[in-house]
């Protein structure tokens, strides 16, 4: 896959930050609104895929190494399971931060409210680590597939 025209590149350049911010918003607000780690991660990864399509997979692989992506992916997964492990004093997956007043530890008010980001305990942290895993994983999948396909085309 070679580089696309300047128009495509410019437009994807200007779209990319918005897609990123929207994806990160979805990850961050996972415990309040529909969405969460996977959905936001998929949005961010699709933004990365847009860059991939606009600028050829070879260019992307000069900037990002596939092995680094898999490290990020492992860290995301380890983070998720470690957070679950932290609650093992009570039960596995026990939400010990909720209602404790720590980060994300406020007790949400009962009934309709405006949505306080600083609630829900472990859930936002888990959303973050799942988001990290999904961004790295999906981007690696798309990038590797594009890279293999483009190498194949060049051979012909």
């Amino acid at each position, binding site marked *: 896959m070679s580089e696309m025209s300047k128009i495509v590149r410019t437009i994807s350049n200007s779209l990319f930050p918005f897609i990123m911010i929207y994806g990160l918003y979805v990850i961050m607000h996972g415990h*309040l*609104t*529909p969405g969460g780690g*996977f*959905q936001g991660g*998929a949005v961010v990864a699709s933004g990365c895929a847009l860059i991939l399509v606009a600028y050829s997979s070879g260019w992307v692989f000069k900037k990002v190494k596939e092995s680094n992506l898999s490290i990020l992916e492992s860290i995301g997964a380890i983070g998720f399971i470690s957070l679950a492990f932290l609650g093992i004093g009570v039960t596995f997956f026990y939400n010990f931060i909720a209602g404790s007043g720590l980060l994300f530890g406020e007790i*949400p008010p009962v*009934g*309709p*409210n*405006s*949505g306080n980001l600083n609630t829900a305990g472990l859930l936002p942290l888990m959303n973050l680590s799942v988001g990290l895993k999904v961004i790295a994983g*999906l981007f690696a*999948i798309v990038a*590797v*597939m594009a890279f*293999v*396909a483009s190498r*194949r085309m060049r051979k012909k």
Partner: protein
Amino acid sequence: MIYNIPFIVVVLLIIVGLATVVFKRNLIKIVIGITIIESGVNLFLITLGYRENSVAPIYTFAPSTKMVLPVPQALTLTSIVIGVAVMALMLSFAIRIYQHYGTLDSRKIRRLRE
């Protein structure tokens, strides 16, 4: 009757997907068939979660009416996540098979038989 339309679509999607998997010979089309079946099943799950005159289970400025139980939505999401992994792995198998066999025709990809 109107509430049954999603279920009819579910059955149609699953039948189309199964027909694709059985009758299409191209590996990529087989993968597409599996994905269509998966969409049918996902639609089925999400339809089960529908309740008339209820709102989505989001607390932000929600009117104080009935909310739906978000379990079917959670199931559908999980199944979508799994579906992504399945599709990615199948497609990478298809790429590898194309590299080795030079074809995607399932009738020619049969070194293992008897």
